[in-house]
């Protein structure tokens, strides 16, 4: 079989279908009111492009900053550089296949990306998930939450210039992820949750690694954060920057740690419980300052709560099957289901519509990072360019989820 011919750079009729979308124009034509406002430059203002390739934008995020000297006057975030069309692909796949498509959305916390559609499909199918499977889901989910928050701490420090914490974070994350590899088989995109349960039971490798790690985890978290919490550079760069008060947070549809750092003790695991969270005992850390430092310290507290939850899961784990009996090809009754969970970044929700066939009619994924990026336009103006990275990092956006 011959290799198919591909276009070559020599071909005079070659057209590379890349959508330049006018990004190489200095000032694009304004299409909306807000754009007109933004591109009207006053005396002394300039536009600076924090382009899609940037070491500190957590992925492919482009921010056009309007600067007056060093101070940010206004900004226009441009997203969509990672839009992969997941919702459309899910409409053309089976229910089980659709769950695989949702993994790479918030790739750092991919079990949560699977959990939400799985609950939605279970509602459509009226499937009862075995209790052991629920406990394993909570256990694996909280491990993933700790890994995600550990990475958050590392990225937060990295964006502010510190190279050591990211190395420590990745050590932490690599250890957790090796545990999850023993459980699920994969390192980043786990593909572990199934409609009606999980893919496989706990095994000896996972349990021994988990036991080892749990005995050290508390001390490791303390050591990692002791480096940063009293670090004068980090504290002065993050305290008082990007303050979000709680009315604005509700108006901006913020959820998750960003909301709790603004004084609102709203956690979906308590406010609208799902899975076996009602049986578990944990606190909801809340901070009232609403600045970058509060968002950072809150996630450190959440790691400690997650460790408590994992401990309880291990002690309360019931026996039983880990997967409900379901046919390979599922055809739910026509209907709609909405399922929201508390992911490490906030409210992660799926709205699924079934039309009675074996493919979802519409699978809408609501990602918290998408909504939180609107906060950039509110929090950054007035601060210096150096603070933009602190604010961006403190909101913890993951561009896979933003662009879907």
């Amino acid at each position, binding site marked *: 079989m011959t*290799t198919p*011919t*591909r*276009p*070559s*750079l*020599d071909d005079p009729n070659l057209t*590379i*279908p*890349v*959508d*330049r*979308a006018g*990004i*190489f124009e200095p000032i694009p034509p304004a299409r909306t009111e807000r754009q007109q406002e933004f591109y009207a430059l006053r005396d002394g203002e300039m536009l600076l492009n924090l*382009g*899609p*390739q*940037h*070491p500190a934008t957590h*992925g*492919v995020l482009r921010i056009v900053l309007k600067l007056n000297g060093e101070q940010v006057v206004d900004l226009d975030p441009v997203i*969509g*550089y*990672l*839009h*992969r*069309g997941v919702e*459309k*692909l899910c409409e*053309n796949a089976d229910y089980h296949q659709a769950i*695989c*498509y949702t993994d*790479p959305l918030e*790739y*750092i916390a991919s079990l949560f990306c699977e959990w939400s559609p799985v609950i939605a499909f279970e509602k459509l199918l009226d499937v009862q998930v075995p209790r052991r499977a629920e406990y394993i889901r909570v256990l694996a989910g909280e491990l993933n939450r700790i890994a995600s928050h550990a*990475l958050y701490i590392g990225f937060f420090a990295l964006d502010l210039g510190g190279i050591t914490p*990211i*190395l420590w974070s*990745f*050590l932490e*994350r*690599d250890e957790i992820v090796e545990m999850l590899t023993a459980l699920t088989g994969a*390192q*980043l*995109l786990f593909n572990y949750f199934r409609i009606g349960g999980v893919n496989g039971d706990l095994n000896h490798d996972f349990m021994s690694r988990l036991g080892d790690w749990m005995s050290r985890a508390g001390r490791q978290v303390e050591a990692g954060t002791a480096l940063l919490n009293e670090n004068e550079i980090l504290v002065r760069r993050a305290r008082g920057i990007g303050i979000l008060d709680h009315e604005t947070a509700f108006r901006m549809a913020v959820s998750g740690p960003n909301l709790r750092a603004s004084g609102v003790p709203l956690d979906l695991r308590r406010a609208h419980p799902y899975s076996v969270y009602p049986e578990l005992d944990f606190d909801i850390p809340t901070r009232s300052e609403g600045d970058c430092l509060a968002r950072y310290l809150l996630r450190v507290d959440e790691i400690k709560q997650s460790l408590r939850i994992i401990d309880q899961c291990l002690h309360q784990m019931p026996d039983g099957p880990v997967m409900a009996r379901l046919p390979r090809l599922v055809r739910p009754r026509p209907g709609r289901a909405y399922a929201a969970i508390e992911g490490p970044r906030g409210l992660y929700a799926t709205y699924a519509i079934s039309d009675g066939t074996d493919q979802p009619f519409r699978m809408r994924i609501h990602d918290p990072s998408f909504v939180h990026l609107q906060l950039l336009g509110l929090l950054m103006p007035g601060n210096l360019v150096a603070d933009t990275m602190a604010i961006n990092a403190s909101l913890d956006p993951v*561009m*896979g989820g933003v*662009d879907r």
Partner: protein
Amino acid sequence: MALRPGSGADAAAGGAGTTPSPGAAGGTSPADAPVEAISVPNRLWSAEQPEAYGGVPLEDAPTLFLREVEAAGIGRTNDARWSGALEIIPTKADLVLDLIRANSLWPLTSGLACCAIEMMSTATSRNDIDRWGHFPFRASPRQADVLIVAGTLTTKMAGPLLRLWEEMPEPKWCVAMGDCTCSGGRYKRSYSTVQGIDRILPVDVYVPGCPPRPEGLLYGMMKLQQLVKARRGHWSERRLGPTVPEGV
């Protein structure tokens, strides 16, 4: 010295006293004979042999400025002459240069999606890519050698990525990390992704996986080091498409 391949006799005769390598004498077949090279005149020193640089004395060499080069369109043709058949006889110095290049390939931080996390995991302490010298991930393409495209490329991002590639100075290599960059991956049917970056960039090493384990990326980088030392790979021939170089 001959600029055209296949004139092994002249190369041996006009050699500057170094041993001829079998590669230059063997020459390449006329089918993939490269076209004219871009020549930037050298005003710092002149060669002793009158036949050096095609026999054209330096004062008569055409002065090429970048705009004229762009207008002439030579930059767009398949003629990258850093590798392939060598018009000069490689010396021990070239071997050392290859070793230096291979052992200090500085990647550009072009992590787009999930594979970027695995790339960062490769760069950090547990799987330390600094052991091979590839640690400084440069943020600016002007300072980078390798473009490790880690993550799905969408049509919106393809323009900026191509611009990054063009901004990188030669010699440069491209590593396609992850299934999405090799062939489109799980987004094969999508309306907004580029089905494999080899549609727009000449890829030297493909690292499959979704995402590839850090060990996988390390193996890919070691493979790239082999290619650098052997002066092979797609970048040299500017070919697009998933063909495998011989002997790999």
